[in-house]
């Protein structure tokens, strides 16, 4: 168990080190294979809030993705349709994808939503903050797992 904890890279901690002191503390998380098994916030997310967050422009998801959001006139087509995400991926896989998609694919264009370090020239209003909070990510994960097809 201890060995597992040691060999697993704590991406958030590692990156936070680069971002120096001004970075907000991210909660530590553990990656096991291609999943983050435990909730980032320690609590279960709220799927209804998760859906509302995904379609909000400031979350940026539907700039790139489309999905089962018939009321949304403008959805992107740079990325897979989110319909069926919950059939294709487990909760833990979806959590890692949101936290740090570059852990799975180094050249992905999908931003890492729970990371503050290793970034270049972040604008003053966004510096030192992850794109989404731990709670927001849990809400979105809770919603994505319901997308079965």
């Amino acid at each position, binding site marked *: 168990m201890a060995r597992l904890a040691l060999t697993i890279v704590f991406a958030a901690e590692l990156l936070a080190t680069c971002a120096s002191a001004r970075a907000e503390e991210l909660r530590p998380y553990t990656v096991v294979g291609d999943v983050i098994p435990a909730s980032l916030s320690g609590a279960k997310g709220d799927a209804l809030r998760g859906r509302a967050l995904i379609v909000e422009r400031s979350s940026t998801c539907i700039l790139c993705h489309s999905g089962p959001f018939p009321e949304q006139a403008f959805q992107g087509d740079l990325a897979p349709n989110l319909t069926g995400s919950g059939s294709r991926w487990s909760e833990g896989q979806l959590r890692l994808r949101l936290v740090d998609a570059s852990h799975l694919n180094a050249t992905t*264009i999908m931003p890492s939503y729970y990371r503050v370090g290793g*970034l270049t020239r972040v604008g003053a209003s966004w510096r030192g903050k992850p794109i989404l909070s731990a709670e927001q990510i849990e809400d979105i994960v809770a919603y994505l797992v319901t997308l079965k097809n």
Partner: protein
Amino acid sequence: MKIAVCIALLTAMAGTSLAAEIPLSERRSGYSFMSPDTRAMQDEDTANPGMLFVLDGEALWTRKAGGADKACADCHNDARISMKGVAAHYPAFEKALGRPVDLEGRINLCRTNHQQASPFAYESRELLALSAFVAQQSRGMPIAAGDDPELAPFVERGHALFMQRQGQLNLGCTNCHDDVWDKKLAGSAITQGQPTGYPLYRLEWQSLGSLQRRLRACITGIRAQAYDYGSPELVELELYLMSRARGMPIETPAVRP
């Protein structure tokens, strides 16, 4: 130790796919992504709101200004002849400064050096009008910027900026404008990010705007710190974009959504 880890990480991120330049036969202006209505607005001078700025610029061309009490026309005469093709070669290398200047920068150098007047503010009506008037004299002519060998290191720096991922969203210009220009970001066509129409009338701005304004909007869009107007970085990006668009016709004053 910490530093080594950081460097390794940054290098890993910088080393992502190096996209090739879009071949001339596949270069497409933002115009070709627009709706028929918006195209018609650009095509018809009487419907194109940018033409009002061009007319303003024409009036400013002959207005005396500054301590020298000279107008642009006192040195350059008829812009229809003297300014033909000029904008297609900008940004150009400025020997006295040892770096490139864009068209707006050149106009302001004429203001200070030859008219002994104060430079116009970026995005001021006067500077937009004069640069639109000058660039319109090259309408339809092929872009030929970046050939001067003295510009090579600056083109290269602009290229590096274009490739670099930045901002909270960690995206580079190339990720959108080389890799997915046939796709849509929310409702907007991404386009190849070609600089052919500037200054141009953007419906979203309800105004004419410069290429630097457009670049700052994309940089803010990826949640990066926008470079200041007139900064060397923005001029280098403009220069790279113009050399990347070599051979494409100038459209000033274009219209965009």
